[in-house]
């Protein structure tokens, strides 16, 4: 391959792709240590201390991480299970079309639907009412905006799983998993053994990059947690957004400090995971 440099493209990329987030990162940091902003009176560490001492921030951070990790892992697990169960059916174009329907639901609409279906006066509650299981909305378990975050997780799963099915179906064909399964059976493995020791590990490894990308997206998810999540402390994006919008202007530098930490976590985790995943791919 002919290596060549096209300098102006490189500058264009740096200008459009790298400079803006970097500038945002630096600006957030400067704002958080009193270097800039309307109320800045000089360098100070008090906003950072305030943030790090706030329980809500740590709660938001851990909620975000917990939900991002669990939803990614669960979606992937469910999707692999479904793909291994349905392999032949997914070949039909109409089924794969149905699986791509969630792509057409923007997060804000997904949040709206999740709310309208899962809240205590929602569609599911009405079905339960007509089935005679509950006497009124107050008898329906609170899963929307509640500390158990069930409504949030369920909505994320419903809209995530079909897309994960498509991705793992692609890997299923690409890695010729069915051929391997057949070979294993020819060598005497039972169907379940072939699935457990061959199909699942192959698909799981191949799904890792997708899990990481979606995990990072979910870590910063905003619209769905805003509508469906626990009100306080909520997930990280929601928590920081509330801080930016609060009437107390001294909350803004604190929010910038949080944004800076968030960005660093995202950056570190993407770089780390891509490095290890790349190595894994190269070793094979």
């Amino acid at each position, binding site marked *: *391959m*002919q*290596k*060549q*440099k*096209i300098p102006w*493209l*490189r500058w264009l*990329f740096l200008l*459009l*792709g*790298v400079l*803006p*987030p970097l*500038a*945002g*990162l630096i*600006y957030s940091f400067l704002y958080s240590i009193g270097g*800039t902003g309307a109320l800045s009176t000089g360098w100070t560490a008090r906003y950072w201390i305030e943030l790090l001492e706030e329980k809500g921030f740590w709660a938001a951070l851990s909620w975000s991480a917990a939900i991002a990790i669990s939803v990614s892992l669960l979606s992937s697990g469910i999707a692999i299970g*479904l793909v291994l*169960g*349905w392999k032949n*059916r997914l070949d039909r174009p109409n089924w794969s*079309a*149905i699986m791509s329907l969630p*792509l057409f*639901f*923007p997060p*804000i*609409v997904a*949040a*709206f*639907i999740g*709310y*309208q*279906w899962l809240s205590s*006066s929602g*569609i599911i*509650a*009405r*079905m339960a009412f*007509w089935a005679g299981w509950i006497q009124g909305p107050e008898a329906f378990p609170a899963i929307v905006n509640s500390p158990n975050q069930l409504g949030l997780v369920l909505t994320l799963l419903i809209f995530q799983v079909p897309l994960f099915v498509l991705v793992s179906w692609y890997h299923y064909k690409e890695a010729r998993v069915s051929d391997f399964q057949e070979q294993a059976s020819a060598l005497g493995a039972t169907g379940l053994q072939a699935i457990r020791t061959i199909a699942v590990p192959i698909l799981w490894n191949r799904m890792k990059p997708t899990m990481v990308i979606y995990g*990072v*997206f979910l*870590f*910063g998810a*905003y*619209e769905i947690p805003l*509508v469906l999540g626990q009100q306080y402390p909520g997930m990280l*994006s929601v928590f920081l*957004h509330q801080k*930016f919008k609060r009437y107390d202007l001294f909350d803004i530098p604190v929010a*910038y400090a949080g*944004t800076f930490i968030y*960005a660093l976590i*995202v*950056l570190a985790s*993407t*770089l780390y995971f*891509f490095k290890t995943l790349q190595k894994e791919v190269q070793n094979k």
Partner: protein
Amino acid sequence: MRSLRNGVLGLFAVVFLLFLSYLVVGSMATEWRFPALFPNGYTFHRWEAVLNRTEWALALFYSFLLSAFVSLTCTSIGLLTASGLSRDPLSTLWLRLCYLPYGLSPVLYAYSMQFFYHTTGMAGTWFGVYLAQFILVYPFAVVLFFNYFDEKMHNLEDIAASLGASRWVRLKTVTLPVLRQPLQTVFAQLFLVSWFDYGITSVIGTGQVKTLTLFVYQYIGESDLYYSALASCLLIAPPLFLWLFHRTFALKPSK
């Protein structure tokens, strides 16, 4: 066991079709409260009102224009960038740098860049939102195209070059035709990212740039089920119909 699996697959189909019909029915319901499973009656007056009100028509039109423009510029500039950077000796570094904005939450990204838009007076304008969305979406384009510029593609281009084709001729007669399918996919994906965006538009647009997603959120905030459902329909319908159209006509083999 088999029937259970088919059941789960069927369940997904039913659930998503129910979601779609829920939005349509909700937008036409006269009254729909607990414990009614179906609305009391149906009315078209909201749809009529919306289609007659210039505010909505303009929102629809401008949202579409914004997303089409974001996607068009990002696809073309992203393609050029990926094609150039993939030949660069430092290509892995460039690709890594793309992930910097790739994973960021749009709303927090928007807050961290807010200042630049306020000082330049671009906050609250359509151009400001365009620029902010462009900056968000552009790395997506580069990442998506990067994979297609592998050794095979470079060899193809090199053959054309050795036969005397200039850069632009190569692009026109080799690269673009080979990438016809991915180009469409990337364009559609970027269009959707922009069309569905709420975080960037709400922060950089400061509420003055009214795209459809903002309408949906506004009505959800007012807990107006009927208008939220209607705005959701308007948000989902254009990409869905384009996709159905594409599936039915464009994907059919030509012979």
